[in-house]
């Protein structure tokens, strides 16, 4: 079994290295194929491990080699395959494999094809380290590793120039990449602090050792660690206020968005909270957990609201990702860790499917993403239309698709915990989700044909690509059916992940579900009437409405990016400039130079005593005698002199 762990972990790494060998040469299809195959191997290994774990229940824990040891600090490269990590491993490798295959088709025309696969496989490798590590520092390796790969992949089309924020809210791929990296770094600092707190209080960073010592720790330490680690999670999972990078990250190629910014990396924050569930379920940190749930709910709502008016296909999906991450945090914060993890998995499948469908549209439309320029695409792209529609149904949570089971469980949890405000907001958000998802589907695939007039001639994606997406569709359909067996599977970890609804909630569950379904269906209907009709009643762009306050507020993302630019980026640049030109050069350096200049100037002054005139010289001698007299007299008077006997 141990070798399977290594296979699962290192197969993507080998793929990455293999692809990087050809990084600078021409496009080679086999590079993509080999990388995909290796990922598939990794998936198989993960699946075998999962099956083994399901059957035997033996958690595999291995230590590969020492990493850092100094003083009492000792961290090794250790990996653990338990229910949590194996869930993530399977999901990650599965989605990755499909995205890899998809990318072979999608990146067909890109001259940096090989480089792309190198990055993408490297990402998977980092992600595997992240989920498999048995200690916080190993997790941090993966954490940073996925950050770098995200940076590389978002900025993949580095050659694109910067644009004005009005023309492109993400400015440019390289800008978006940097934004993502830097924002994540801010959160990473929080994570590091969490690691420091845990190390100095427990003397270790290995999960089991740390968690075993948690009960001995004081409240402040626990709260501090919980907050610090959650700050780390906020960055990676793009929670408010560190959320702006996620939508900007849509500048990357679509497979990247599907894999990294929907299915896997952004869920790392959720994974961290789930992984640290013994910490977050401590009574002392209940406040923090509540905050996590509230923030998650808020983000779910907040992101959904922005998606309502967005015109950019990918950004809508990004907002929906953000919103769904909010759901996951809400569940995790409320203690339903396994539900969060289950939603994470289900979401990974349907969201990847949605994104890949979006990629097909984009590919067909020559990178045009404006919904207002599409319409009636279903005739030309039937397969894509089916996939995207299907994925949207999963997303909005209609039974029997995956989204229904997991999301409904979260809403139920909010009800069960008597946090009714959260519950109401989550329900409303579900309605909003339904509206914007189908607004997007209808605007692009239904209604009047707006694209032909603009000179677009869309065509369907390659067959093998569509075929590759099929497993995702299947998973989006069936995942939910295995909820109870998953529950049974993950409950073996221990008490802290177990979560059951109260009997009261259990009785009401069916009505609650029906209510949500009703809201969702009415939203879809509304969207249909507004956007999907043709002819007379076809949707027309209403420029006037776009000037409204709320519309502008939403389309400008509540002016948060603007705020960051005006109050953080620009002042930072300004202060830096002041530090450099005003303080460093004018004060610190000038002081040093002035000391030197002072001596030089004194020299110039003093040298004037050297007039060359003998008479002055002789006078100086007399002056000198006077000085000596003065010195002697003074030192005698102040007692330095006299006779010491």
């Amino acid at each position, binding site marked *: 079994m141990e070798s399977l762990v290594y296979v699962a972990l290192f197969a993507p790494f080998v793929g990455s290295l293999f692809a990087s060998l050809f990084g600078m040469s021409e496009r080679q299809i086999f590079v993509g194929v080999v990388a995909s195959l290796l990922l598939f191997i990794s998936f198989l290994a993960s699946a075998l491990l999962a099956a083994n774990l399901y059957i035997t229940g033996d958690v595999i824990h291995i230590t590969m080699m020492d990493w850092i040891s100094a003083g009492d600090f000792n961290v090794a490269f250790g990996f653990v395959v338990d229910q949590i990590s194996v869930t993530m491993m399977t999901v990650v490798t599965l989605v990755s494999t499909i995205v890899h295959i998809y990318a072979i088709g999608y990146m067909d025309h890109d001259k940096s094809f090989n480089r792309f696969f190198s990055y993408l496989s490297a990402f998977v490798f980092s992600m595997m380290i992240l989920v498999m590590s048995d200690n916080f520092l190993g997790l941090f390796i993966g954490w940073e590793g996925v950050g770098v790969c995200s940076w590389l992949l978002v900025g993949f089309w580095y050659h694109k120039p910067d644009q004005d924020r009005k023309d492109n809210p993400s400015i440019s791929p390289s800008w978006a990449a940097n934004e993502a990296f830097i924002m994540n770094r801010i959160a990473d600092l929080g994570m590091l602090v969490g690691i420091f707190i845990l190390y100095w209080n427990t003397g270790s960073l290995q999960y089991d050792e740390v968690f075993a010592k948690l009960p001995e720790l004081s409240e402040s330490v626990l709260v501090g660690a919980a907050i610090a680690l959650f700050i780390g999670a906020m960055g990676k999972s793009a929670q408010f206020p560190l959320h702006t990078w996620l939508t900007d990250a849509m500048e990357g190629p679509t497979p990247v968005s599907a894999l990294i910014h929907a299915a896997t990396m952004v869920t790392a924050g959720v994974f961290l909270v789930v992984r640290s569930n013994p910490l977050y379920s401590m009574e002392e940190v209940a406040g923090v957990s509540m905050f996590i749930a509230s923030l998650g709910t808020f983000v779910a709502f907040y992101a959904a609201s922005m998606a309502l008016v967005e015109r950019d296909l990918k950004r809508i999906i990004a907002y929906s990702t953000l919103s769904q991450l909010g759901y996951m945090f809400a569940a995790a914060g409320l203690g339903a860790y396994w539900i969060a993890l289950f939603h994470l998995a289900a979401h990974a499948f349907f969201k990847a499917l949605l994104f890949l469908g979006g990629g097909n549209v984009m590919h067909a439309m020559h990178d045009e993403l404006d919904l207002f320029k599409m319409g009636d695409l279903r005739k030309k792209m039937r397969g894509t239309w089916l996939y995207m529609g299907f994925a949207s149904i999963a997303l909005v949570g209609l039974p029997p698709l995956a989204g229904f089971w997991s999301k409904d469980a979260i809403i139920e949890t909010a009800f069960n915990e008597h946090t009714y405000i959260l519950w109401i907001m989550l329900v409303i958000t579900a309605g909003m989700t339904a509206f914007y998802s189908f607004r997007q589907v209808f605007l692009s695939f239904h209604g009047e044909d707006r694209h032909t007039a603009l000179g677009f001639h869309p065509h369907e994606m390659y067959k093998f690509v569509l075929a590759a997406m099929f497993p995702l569709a299947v998973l989006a359909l069936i995942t939910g059916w295995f909820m109870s067996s998953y529950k049974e599977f993950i409950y073996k970890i221990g008490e802290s992940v177990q979560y059951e609804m109260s009997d009261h909630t259990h009785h009401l569950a069916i009505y609650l579900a029906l209510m949500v379904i009703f809201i969702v269906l009415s939203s879809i209907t509304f969207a249909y009437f507004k956007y999907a009709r043709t002819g007379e009643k076809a949707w027309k762009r209403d420029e006037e409405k776009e000037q409204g306050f709320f519309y502008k507020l939403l389309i400008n993302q509540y002016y948060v990016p603007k705020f960051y630019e005006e109050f953080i980026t620009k002042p930072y640049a300004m202060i830096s400039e002041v530090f450099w030109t005003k303080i460093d050069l004018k004060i610190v350096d000038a002081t040093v130079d002035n000391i*030197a200049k002072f*001596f*030089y100037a*004194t*020299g*110039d002054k*003093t*040298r004037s*005593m*050297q007039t*060359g005139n*003998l008479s*002055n*010289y*002789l006078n*100086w*001698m007399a*002056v*000198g*005698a006077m*000085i*000596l*007299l003065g*010195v*002697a*007299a003074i*030192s*005698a008077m102040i007692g*330095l*002199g*006299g*006779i*010491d*006997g």
Partner: protein
Amino acid sequence: MLEPINVSLDSLNLITLAPMLIAIAGGLIILIIDLINNKLDKTLYVMLTLLVLFINFGAVLGLNVNERGFFDVMLIDGISIISQLMIIGGSMIFIPLALTSKRFHEYAYPEFFALFLFMISGFQFMVATDNLILIFVGLETASLSLYTLIAMHNRANSYEAAVKYFIMGALAAAFFAMGSVVVYALTGSVELYKVAEVLATRLDETGLMVAILGSSILLMVAFGFKLSLFPFHTWAPDVYEGASAPLAGYMSVVPKIAAFVVSIRIFGMYIDLGVEWVRWMILILAVLTMTLANIMALVQDDVKRMLAYSSISHAGFIMAALALDTTEGNTSIFLYYALFMFTNLGAFTMLWISRHKKRRFNKRYDHPYEKFSGLIKIMPIGAVVMAIFMLSLAGVPPFSVFWGKIYVMQAAVNSGYIWLAIIMGLNSAIAAYYYLKLIVYMFLKEPVKDVDTVYYNMSKPLMVIIGFATFATVTAVFYVQPLLSYLYYMISASGY
């Protein structure tokens, strides 16, 4: 009834006089040879002088420590021996510098060499006695010869320099004489050991303090002048500039050694007696001298003038050691000068080999910095050697002056004068700038013009001297230990 004068030759201990007599005799021989044949070449006289100096050196080495002679006027103690050795050693390095490839006026006269030997005997008298009369006689003999030697360089500047030096020297001599009067009036003696004895018994008298004040100030003016301490240093830059480069280098070392010996004898006596203000006077003069000379050196445009100020600053540095009045302090004076001698003479010799008959680079100066621009391209070895001298002067280890410097600073620290050590350190840092300036010109700038004429005055003997100075500068670390233990032994043997 008058007793017949009966002086036994043994009690005279004439051997103590031998070194000076050798020098004087040598000078006379040179004059006589010239009378017989006045067409002889300077090389003869140079070698003759050198031989005389060798014999002289040997005679000094043969002296026993702590002897008196010639009616107890001569005092051969440790410091008189080591200072005589250093004086002769410095002179031996100096005299071959006459053998330049170009002809210079002064070396055409045999009188130059005779006067030179007389001057040495003067210095030797100064250091080998504790009698104020003999000190005065030695001092004046040496000074008068030196004035003449400067003037013999035969340029407008040399006369100006000689006259300035002469007049100020005469004034200093008057101050010395007056100081001696006060001492004599106080104690009825001009022999320092007796003076010390008398003063020690009468220290509690108030009136005495005033007189001590007078005598110490008068003598301090005289020696402040000789040692070029601020504000009596004003002659030094002009005289160094006017004199020929080797002579300027010589003046920055040998006369100062002699003057330091006398200063140790006189002011050391005062400090030993517990007259603290003398210590403070010296300290303040020393600090002022090293600092002001340093910052004046910063702004110089001429290398020779810069070296003149630097020599003043070094003298101030050493003067501070004198104020410590410990064996270590006194040892450090000699150690410093022994190490400084090679480097400084070497540096001035480097100027000497680049000396032109006419001023090519600047109307006012012989050795402006521009002259050395890009020297690394013209004569790489010369540039490296000069840079070594400059670094040594700046106190960069492992070159010779550094070892002197840390010994002085260690002596200051050991006596509790940490502030003094810090001032010394900071001064070294300031000084580094102007030494560096020359290095910058030599290594980092492009040559300006007349590139072929920089080593105009080069000759084999000069190369030997420079090579020797370089060797001594670079390998200092290996001979500091024997030198130091010898000096320390000699000085502690003579009770300082």
